[in-house]
C-alpha cells in the first residue's frame, strides 16, 4: 500500500466517522422538544451528510467544472420545480370534496 493510497483510505474513514456522528446527532436531537427547530435540524443534518457524500465519496472536490455544473444544475432544477409547485399549492385553500356532506348548512353561516 503506497502512502498516497493509505492517505485516501484514511480520509474516507474520517468522512464515515463524521457521517455516523451526524446520524447519532440527528437521531438524538429528534427526541428533544425543540418545536419547529426539530425539522430544521433534521433537514440541515441530512443536507450536510449528503454534501459529505457528494464532495468526498462522489469526488466532487476534485471533479472537473463540467461535472460540478451538472450536479448543481440537477439541484437547481429540483429547487425550481419545488418552488413553482409550492406557489401553486400555497395560494389555494383546501376545498372539501364536493360530494361530502357539509358539516353545517351553508345558510347558517352567512345568515342569508
Amino acid at each position: 500500500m503506497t502512502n498516497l493510497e493509505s492517505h485516501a483510505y484514511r480520509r474516507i474513514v474520517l468522512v464515515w466517522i463524521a457521517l455516523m456522528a451526524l446520524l447519532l446527532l440527528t437521531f438524538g436531537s429528534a427526541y428533544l422538544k425543540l418545536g419547529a427547530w426539530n425539522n430544521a435540524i433534521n433537514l440541515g443534518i441530512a443536507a450536510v451528510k449528503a454534501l459529505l457524500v457528494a464532495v468526498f465519496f462522489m469526488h466532487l472536490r476534485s471533479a472537473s467544472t463540467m461535472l460540478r455544473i451538472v450536479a448543481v444544475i440537477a439541484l437547481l432544477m429540483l429547487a425550481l420545480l419545488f418552488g413553482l409547485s409550492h406557489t401553486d399549492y400555497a395560494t389555494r385553500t383546501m376545498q372539501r370534496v364536493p360530494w361530502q356532506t357539509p358539516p353545517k348548512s351553508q345558510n347558517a353561516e352567512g345568515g342569508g
Partner: protein
Amino acid sequence: MSEAMHAAQFDSAAQQEEAATLGIWVFLATELMFFGPLFFGYYYGRSHFPDGFAAASRHTEVMLGTINTAVLLTSSMLMAIAGEARKANATRLATRMLLLVAALGIAFLVIKGIEYRHEWQERLFPGAGFFFPEHQHAAAARMFYFLYFGMTGLHALHLTIGIVMVLVFALGLSRGARRFANAERIEVAALYWHFVDAVWIFLYPILYLVGRSSG
C-alpha cells in the same frame, strides 16, 4: 497495460473516463427528477397535515430505520474504498470491499423487509385493510404510508439494481476479469451507489424522525 486502453472515439483514457463520469452524473440528475416528485408529495402532505404526518411518522420503526441508515452509510464508505483500491490496482482489496458492499446492501433489504412485515401486521399498509389508531389523523396517515411505501419501495428497487451491479463487478474481479471490472466502471457503479445512499439520507429524517419529540 491493456486496461489503460481507450475506445477509438476518445483521444485518451482520461477523456474516456471524463465522458463516463459525465454520463453517470447526467443519469443521476434524471434520477433526482424521478425521486423529486415523491419528495414534493411528502412536502405537500407534511405542510398541509402537519399533525397527521407527525402522528403517522411515530408509527414507523425508528430503531430499524436508524440501523439501516448506519448500514447504508457504512456500505458507501466501503464502496469508496473499493473505488480507490481498484484505481491503485489493489484488486484483492477491491473485490473484498465490493462483496462487503453487496452484503450490507442485502442486510439493508432484509431489515427493510422486517419493517414492512411489522407495518403489514399493524395494518399500516395503505390498502383496503388500512387502520390507524388515532382516527382523526387516519386520512393523513394513509397518505403518509402511501408515500412511505412508495419512496422506500422505489429506493429498495434502486438498491437492488446496485447490489446486482456491485456483485457482477466483484465476481468479475475475483475471476481476474480486470478489463471488464476496470477502475472506470467501478467508479461509475460507486457514483450510483452513493446517490442511492444520499436519497436515503433524506428519507431517514422525513419518514422516521418527524414528530418523535411530540405526542
